[in-house]
């Protein structure tokens, strides 16, 4: 009996230890992420008025290079200002993000910066914050009600599709077969990137010489990208270009093409602007271009939040108030201009 109990307690301890390491890990991570910059009021330079702005940012789980860069850029932007007291919260999913924001509301920050896991699901809690007098800055994924945010900053997903279509159509002179590896099915980011692409191909090459021969989701995930592309390579004997929705996922697609020994047959484009992608664009070959969807919009979001909190604006604008919506332009990165854009690459 005692042996049994010993075994059980040892096992329990093991499980607990495992749990603890996991938690510790999490804590570590959070600690790194939630470093609070409390600025001494006397040294405040930016505002000049001597007051501090308390900003809390909430982002989805950063299990992806782009989201990781979002967190880092927001943190870095906050550290540049002495008059900003900043806290970053990472949520595990849409539900816990809602709870997290509710808790944040009770801490009464001046401004909330929110990149929602799911815009529609988090709209009510954002409205709640606005009603409680906390300004909300919405990043990238849109809330579904106009009174849920004071300001919004987002990338232009439709434009990314347009740029990719223009680039591929020009390179192929409107003649050839194109494969599209999409992101996660059913979210606006994916739908917009696809719609911009197909609309533009139709307008630009009305004779139908440029055909989208396959279009399948790779879920922003390299191993899904790999297997989907393997199957498409089987089905399509003649591919000229591949438009992928994401640089991380594109690495799996690249690998499928290389494993099949068909890297001379086609070229590929990504979206995002990761270090890896830029490196391969520089080297030349299969990876020909990426379309910038820059995570440093998070830095802009924090700066906007600060100005809103201070009641200031952009001097160049008339009136100077922070605009309701800022759309960050997408840019084409190719071998010709990669040196210029490399500074914005994220890993």
């Amino acid at each position, binding site marked *: 009996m005692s042996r049994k109990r010993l075994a*059980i307690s040892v*096992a*329990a301890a093991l499980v607990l230890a*495992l749990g603890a390491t996991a938690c510790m*890990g999490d804590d570590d991570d959070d600690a790194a992420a939630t470093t609070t910059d409390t600025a001494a009021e006397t040294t405040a330079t930016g505002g000049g008025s001597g007051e501090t702005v308390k900003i809390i940012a909430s982002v989805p789980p950063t299990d*992806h290079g782009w989201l990781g860069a979002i967190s880092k850029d927001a943190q870095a932007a906050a550290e540049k200002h002495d008059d900003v007291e900043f806290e970053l919260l990472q949520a595990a999913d849409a539900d816990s993000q809602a709870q997290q924001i509710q808790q944040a509301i009770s801490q009464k920050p001046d401004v909330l910066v929110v990149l929602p896991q799911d815009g529609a699901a988090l709209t009510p809690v954002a409205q709640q914050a606005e009603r409680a007098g906390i300004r909300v800055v919405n990043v990238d994924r849109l809330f579904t009600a106009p009174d849920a945010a004071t300001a919004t900053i987002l990338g232009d997903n439709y434009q990314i599709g347009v740029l990719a279509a223009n680039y591929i159509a020009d390179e192929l002179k409107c003649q050839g077969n194109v494969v599209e590896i999409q992101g996660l099915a059913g979210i606006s980011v994916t739908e917009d990137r696809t719609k911009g692409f197909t609309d533009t191909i139709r307008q630009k090459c009305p004779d139908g010489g440029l055909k989208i021969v396959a279009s399948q989701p790779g879920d922003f995930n*390299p191993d899904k990208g*790999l297997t989907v592309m393997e199957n498409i390579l*089987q089905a399509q004997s003649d591919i000229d270009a591949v438009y992928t929705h994401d640089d991380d996922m594109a690495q799996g697609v690249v690998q499928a093409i290389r494993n099949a020994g068909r890297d001379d047959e086609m070229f590929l484009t990504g979206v995002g602007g990761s270090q890896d992608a830029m490196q391969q664009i520089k080297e030349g070959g299969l990876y020909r271009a990426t379309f910038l969807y820059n995570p440093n919009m998070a830095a802009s979001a924090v700066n906007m939040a600060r100005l809103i909190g201070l009641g200031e604006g952009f001097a160049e604008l008339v009136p100077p108030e922070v605009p309701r919506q800022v759309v960050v332009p997408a840019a084409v990165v190719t071998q010709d201009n990669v040196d210029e854009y490399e500074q914005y690459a994220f890993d």
Partner: protein
Amino acid sequence: MTDTAQTWRGALGRAKALEFQEYALAIVVVLLFIAGAILKPDTFPTWDNIRNMLTQSSVVGVLAIGMTFVIATAGIDLSVGSMVAAAGVFGGIMVGTDGTSSLVFILAAILFATFLGTCNATAIAYGRVVPFIATLAMFSIARGLALLLNDKLPVSLLDLNGGSFGDPRPFSLLWFGVGRIFGIPVSVFVFLAIAILGWVVLNRTRYGRYVIAVGGNREAARIAGVPVRRIIFSVYVLSGFLAGISTVLLCARLGSASPVSGNLYELDAIGAVVIGGTSLAGGRASIVGTFLGVLTFALIFSLMTQLNMSTEIQQVTKGLIVLGAVLLQRPEARY
């Protein structure tokens, strides 16, 4: 289960049902292949595509063999996909930036996955945690570790092949993904070898009989002198070990180890095992069925991608085929 005669009749019935199920699933595989050959005559029934489907099967296939043993004991392992991700990233950071030894990666990945499997095994066999809960915890822990180990970033493994893609040396990491022996990919050989070994162990050894016995009636097995706890312990360690092998096969093809890889592989593995006729209630298992189940999924995936069907339709079709495959099979096993 007190009446011996009845038990025997039940066992015989089960054995017959299992055979029929294997035939039925083989028919599903053949039908899917014929459907592919009719719908895509130029690109589907080719040697190249068969090779492609077998290669794609190998990753989930190896997991499914381990899952068959786990489910045979009336257990479940929800953590295999997360373990694949964690083991890959762990192997990747062990190699480091200047590492050139594939062996380091392979050993590190397999050892780490086996270690995680052993944690599952300890919690379940000695901590008496319900398998569903213990492996659900590991599902979360291993995914967290995968993200934590390299600060959420993927690790490139191309250096293990001198940074190039062409013709990997035998026994280098990439060779397991793209290398071929007699025109057949190495990963397919690995999968087939593990499937055959799994079949022999499950059907032709005392250990295999014990696994089935534990799943069939734990109390009876204990009274008959089967080391129940050790058997249960062993299947989760095995599942972890095979997750390590699966990691090697995946990373070899991908040329990198990503913390988001292996997402929901456990569902494909469990699905393949179940349509293969292994009972979730334990006590009945079929490696041949699992093998055919894995092939069924690969055929469906390949065919639907080739037909460029939208995801919604793919999901509905896959679900219907799984349901159909089970309905077509054993009336007695539906409830």
